[in-house]
């Protein structure tokens, strides 16, 4: 042994000293549920597709949307984006303009002719879908991708349902609907138009179908009895919008149109009438705050020159004039009559008071039950009281939006798939919500929202051109990069950088990180400095 004076040991590395034994709690990487994903009625994994869009990988982002929703270009226009209402970024500056990015991706996919493939092997099973609205199309798409043979029977002359008959062209151009519907049909889905199914059980038997998904929507307009001694001109909103779509000439309304109701459909009718060159007045029995229509639609309608009479009910319709009664809200917010009347000019009254389900066909199916308000009752797996017959969309109890309908279609498809395979579908457990308090917002750059261009007002009042424009590529990329990636690692390297003990292992792009528990002392800096709240500290068993 030849060592210097007073040296008896060889130089060693501190790596032999496993400081992990000091630890009383350990860090753990988690994926939390971002509030946008949580709020999406179609179950889109929004944070995930934005993650790909942030990198400019638009194809991958679009494919991620398509896992859950076959209609991105439509959704980006017509969905009321509850994702944005719940977006954590709204608490910093303003919500990420998610729908605009979705629309950008959807439009790009149409432009580039992107398609998805059926990867599942053919199951040999056949499913009948009744109704080619958003719910039926969504179910057909998912069933086709799961390997089943699908036939859609649609009573009307075109596919799209409420996407055509409920949403005017200035909000949703029909070329977009056609392109996204065609993509679903290209998966091998058969569409039979002008085919009203009168006997579902019989049709299933004759066609050899193993299961059925009914999504015929709610097309019957609700009516109220209003005295009309001179037989004034009264229409309902749904047949008016239906005629707009199917007839060569728009229906004649008269110079001054009074729309009765406060929902989105009322606004659609008023804005359509305005574009046809008529005066449009909305009569609604409560206040703007209580209006079920979305505020941005009210704002757009007012911009376009629609006038709205709040706190009024129609009591009599005469030739050229309409009698309305003033209302007031009681303490609980319900409208009550005041006994004061006034007269407004009007040639046509359009009733936009909601829709009911046409139950004539369904009521004949043995085992199917209706709830008191005329919608079809389904179990949590979307099945009606009749084995193998499922239902979704506007005809089952829920809110009525196209996004919810698409979500029903997906959910039903998963349960139908399980049913056909003799199994039960188990939804994966939900992660804990990534609420705002889980974020370390210091790390996010300040960045204002990119707004979509809007058509100028003159053209909005006179034409049916689309009101909102799309984002261009640079704006869409910027907007995607405003995403905070709540609750899901976006590989910012913070944990890797801030560990005083080098106890975080970087696994390389796309592979995230791991903890080296031999050395982690459990200080918790990584969890504290993680911008998106993707690390938790859990106690060790001591």
């Amino acid at each position, binding site marked *: 042994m030849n060592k210097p004076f007073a040296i008896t*040991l*060889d*130089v*060693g*590395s*501190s*790596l*032999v*000293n*496993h*400081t992990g034994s*000091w630890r009383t709690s350990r860090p753990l990487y988690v994926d939390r549920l971002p509030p946008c994903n949580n709020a999406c009625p179609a179950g889109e994994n929004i944070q995930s597709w934005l993650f790909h869009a*942030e*990198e400019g990988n638009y194809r991958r982002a679009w494919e991620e949307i398509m896992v859950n929703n076959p209609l991105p270009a439509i959704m980006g226009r017509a969905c009321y984006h509850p994702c944005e209402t719940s977006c954590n970024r709204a608490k910093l500056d303003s919500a990420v303009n998610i729908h605009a990015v979705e629309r950008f991706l959807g439009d790009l996919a149409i432009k580039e002719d992107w398609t998805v493939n059926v990867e599942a092997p053919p199951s040999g099973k056949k499913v009948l879908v009744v109704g080619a609205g958003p719910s039926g199309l969504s179910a057909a798409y998912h069933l086709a991708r799961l390997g089943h043979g699908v036939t859609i029977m649609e009573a009307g002359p075109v596919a799209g349902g409420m996407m055509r008959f409920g949403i005017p062209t200035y909000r949703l151009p029909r070329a977009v609907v056609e392109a996204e519907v065609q993509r679903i049909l290209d998966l091998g889905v058969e569409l039979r138009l002008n085919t009203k199914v009168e006997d579902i059980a019989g049709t299933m038997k004759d066609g050899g179908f193993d299961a059925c998904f009914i999504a015929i929507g709610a097309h019957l307009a609700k009516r109220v009895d209003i005295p009309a001694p001179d037989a004034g001109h009264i229409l309902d909103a749904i047949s008016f919008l239906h005629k707009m779509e199917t007839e060569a000439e728009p229906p004649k309304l008269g110079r001054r149109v009074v729309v009765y109701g406060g929902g989105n459909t009322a606004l659609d009718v008023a804005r359509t009438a305005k574009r046809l060159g008529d005066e449009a007045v909305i009569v609604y029995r409560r206040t703007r705050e209580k209006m079920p229509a979305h505020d941005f639609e009210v704002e757009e309608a007012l911009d376009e020159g629609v006038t709205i009479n709040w706190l009024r009910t129609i009591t009599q319709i005469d030739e050229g004039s309409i009698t309305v009664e003033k209302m007031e809200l009681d303490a609980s917010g319900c409208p009550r009559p005041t006994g004061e009347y006034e007269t407004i000019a009007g040639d046509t009254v359009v009733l936009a008071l909601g829709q009911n389900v046409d139950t004539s066909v369904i009521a004949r199916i043995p085992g199917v039950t209706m709830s008191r308000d005329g919608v079809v009752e389904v179990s949590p797996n979307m099945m009606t009281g009749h084995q193998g017959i499922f239902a979704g969309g506007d005809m089952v109890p829920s809110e009525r939006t196209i996004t919810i309908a698409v979500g029903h279609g997906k959910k039903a498809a998963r349960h139908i798939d399980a049913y056909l395979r003799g199994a039960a579908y188990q939804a994966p457990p939900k992660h804990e919500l990534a609420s705002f308090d889980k974020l370390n917002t*210091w*790390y*996010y*750059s*300040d*960045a204002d929202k990119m707004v979509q261009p809007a058509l100028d007002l003159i053209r909005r009042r006179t034409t049916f051109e689309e009101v909102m424009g799309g984002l261009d590529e640079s704006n869409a990329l*910027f907007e995607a*990069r*405003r*995403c*905070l*990636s709540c609750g899901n690692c*976006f*590989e*910012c*390297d*913070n944990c*890797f*950088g*801030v*560990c*005083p*003990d*080098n*106890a975080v292992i*970087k696994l*390389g*792009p796309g592979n995230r990180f791991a903890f*080296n528990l*031999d*050395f982690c*002392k*459990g*200080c*918790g*800096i990584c*969890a*504290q*400095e993680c*911008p998106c709240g993707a690390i938790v*500290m859990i106690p060790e068993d001591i």
Partner: protein
Amino acid sequence: MTEQSYQRVKFYQTGTLTVGNRLLDEVNRTVQASMSRSNALTSGHRACQGCGEALGARYALDAAMRATDNQLVAVNATGCLEVFTTPYPETSWQLPWLHSLFGNAAAVASGVAAALRVTGRSHVRVIAQGGDGGTTDIGFGCLSGMFERNDDVLYICYDNQAYMNTGVQRSSATPPTARTATTPAVGPEPGNIFGSGKDLPRIAMAHGIPYVGTASVADLHDLEAKVTRAMGLHGARYIHILVPCPLGWGSDPADTIRVARLATESGLFPLFEAEYGEVTASTPIRRQVPVEEYLRTQQRFAHLFKGDSPDVERIAALQRAADRNIRTYHLLRSAGDER
């Protein structure tokens, strides 16, 4: 003097506020974001949980290793950093490293630089490092001499504002009102008194040396830019890095970076650079906070908030010190300059 140590990237989700960012070019990410960083101070060291000094030393030396293509020697003063990295016979250092005495790190480093020069290896660069005790008190004479001779050494002080290794005694870097073992929170002037201590970065500047910088473990991009800049120069250079000490400050180990961030965002610890005695750049405050927010994170200031009424007088005096820094170093810029 509106410049800053490095060009901030304004957007891309987190811009340059995080350690890395997959949306940025490699050059805009930190050395610490790299899988091939040298880890000059590696795992298994015996620093406390959440040690700011262990973090600061790795940040600085990894940046210096990259800047010198790993041709680097480090000389260490006695202190926590020396003790927790080299319990005989283990070492956590993955570069040539030398320790002599508490007070002579600057002198030893001068000697190492001279030896490298006369043996024709001046491309090997020298860093001396120590805590605030070894720098501002015990090693101050040697350090001033190194500055005065303009020896080719970068001296880095990891400032945790007291003698932590020996049981949290006051140093000349301990801030006013802070409680230490030797400045207890009792009597009419609890904690460390006002009007004492040294502002070492300004003393270093007074020597007219090529480079002086202050940095914090809370702003990694800024810290690395300063070390890289210093290693690009020759002669005597000095960098003073604020490193929170959970043990001595009585802060939560998980809060080390947050506490350091509050120190700079309140203005109590200004981040600036100076060349040949003149301030050339400072890092603006991004979201200003009152000093109280910083003080409340630490038990050593707990006496300021004890009982029914906070010690408004002393808190106001600390706020005045922060405000003075903000004025002196131009730390609040208009909204247009904001990152």
